């Protein structure tokens, strides 16, 4: 089973303070200050890579990881190679800048359409923009069936279809059968992503990352970047924190004692 996995190299902002750059307006979707932020593979993409590795262990085949991004994204691609991906492709061109989800899917689809694959995997959504749009858009561009929010996959040798579970709201799953080749967007928690071994990391250092630009993809300049996008960023801003919470201040002991009083007054203890 040959699998293509699309990944994104993103800043980890879960505990970081975020500031908007003064020139955010000219930077399209990337207008936050990057100093001090640690970049890594987007969380759901990490699960998508693991799902590909699990399927490869069961059914053989090759895994190709792809990303649209700057040179720094090689870090994420190398980590995928270290875990067991066979090839890595980085799609980089100044003219890609300003691409929204639609234009990004266009770039990916041009790179993928002539490859041999049974499955294309993406994360459900990226940690930075959270749009959950590239995967399902890409499926339509490639003309293959898709399923979003996949939390379980079952395949059989030489079958041209798969059974997958999609996550619905409230703890319910939907089971469906899908014909291959197909695109699945992978939800976090579907598996346990592995860590790369030292041996794997060493081996990955020697592998070549293929870099393709707009001309290699034979795409028109108008099909990418802002011109190829269907949405544009007007403004980024830090939302007003209408902090409703009464913030308790003092040492851990002081705030704890204050809380216990509150609990007593509200009759919870």
């Amino acid at each position: 089973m040959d699998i293509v996995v699309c990944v994104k190299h993103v800043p980890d902002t879960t505990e970081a303070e975020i500031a908007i750059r003064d020139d955010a307006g000219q930077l399209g979707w990337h207008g936050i200050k990057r100093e001090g932020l640690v970049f890594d593979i987007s969380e759901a993409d990490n699960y998508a890579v693991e799902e590909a590795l699990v399927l490869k262990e069961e059914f053989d085949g090759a895994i190709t990881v792809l990303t649209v991004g700057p040179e720094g994204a090689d870090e994420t691609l190398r980590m995928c190679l270290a875990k067991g991906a066979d090839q890595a492709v980085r799609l980089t061109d100044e003219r890609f800048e300003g691409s929204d989800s639609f234009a990004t899917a266009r770039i990916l689809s041009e790179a993928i359409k002539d490859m041999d694959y049974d499955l294309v995997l993406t994360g459900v959504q990226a940690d930075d923009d959270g749009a959950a749009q590239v995967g399902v858009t890409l499926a339509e561009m490639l003309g293959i069936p898709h399923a979003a929010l996949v939390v379980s996959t079952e395949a059989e040798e030489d079958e041209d279809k798969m059974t997958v579970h999609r996550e619905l709201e409230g703890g319910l799953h939907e089971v469906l059968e899908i014909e291959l080749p197909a695109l699945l967007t992978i939800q976090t928690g579907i598996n346990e992503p592995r860590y790369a071994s030292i041996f794997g990391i060493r081996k990955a250092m020697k592998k070549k990352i293929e870099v393709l630009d707009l001309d290699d993809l034979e795409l028109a300049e108008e099909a990418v970047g802002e011109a190829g996008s269907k949405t544009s960023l007007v403004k980024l801003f830090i939302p007003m924190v209408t902090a409703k919470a009464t913030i308790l201040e003092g040492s851990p002991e002081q705030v704890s004692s204050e809380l216990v009083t509150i609990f007593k007054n509200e009759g919870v203890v």
Partner: protein
Amino acid sequence: MGEIFVLAEHRQGELRDVTFEMLGKGQELAATLDAPLVAVLLGHNVDGLATELAKHANLVLVIEDEQLEHFNSAAYQQVLARMITERKPGLVLMGHTSYGMDLAPSLATQLDLPLVTDCVGLEFEDGPGAQPLAVREMYGGKVSAKVAFSQAGTYMATARQAAFPFEEEGEPLGGEVVAVDSPLTDEIEYRKFLEYVEAAVGDVDITQADVVVAVGRGIKEGENMALVEKLAEALGGVLAGSRPVVDAGWLPPDRQVGQSGKTVKPRLFVAVGISGASQHVVGMKASSTIVAINKDPDAPIFKVAHYGIVDDLFKVVPALTAQLGG
């Protein structure tokens, strides 16, 4: 401006809340734009749902087909692509849900329409040829973005769940219910719905607890869970968690609070090391008293909490447990 389409979302015979939230927003937009509000209902034996929708829309278009009994984005896409092409609505609104996320991007791409997903705000500029502007969140809610659509005859947007209020007030709109022929012919082979599966149920039902202590990503390691478990015990409550903790396998899935997990409304909800992503908040915001412990003062959880402690949970949780006699 053409009609405003709201895709009615329903499952197992019931309309989902997001449907009414979108109709509420749709009504507001319809009034501003002087456009009819149309609920679009795809399903099988859904007369009852259509009657319900008619109260909140100027028109209900019903597409009845056996193949539409359960949601299948492939079937929905075929039906909606034809309806949008024929009726040319000005706006198509669907939920940013397990259905909308599976459907909106491919439908928009097929029809070459601009789409903004997971909107928490949507307005149109004044005047003829009005263009929509959407507001959505990025970086887990720490940044907001105002987003414009490229010029089009039909705009598409998905609405975040619980982002738009719905108030069941005012006169019913009493829209007409009109049946539209289904364009589906042969059974769709490339994607087939098989069944629903309920998540496994464990020994504790967190929705019934008076006190819920919930743990988030801030707990760092599975072995630290014991710390919070002691606090839950001291409070006579149950232990629950946000998605990352369940994904990591530190708590079973039936302890997950949020959109894809359970919705809880305890008397006391203590959020420990939870940032407060919208997908979590939707499952706990109705709790009577919410206490948040998080070292990040900008964490969105402080927007919903009643009491907040901005400090290291590894210091506060043991201190609080001790004060409770645990």
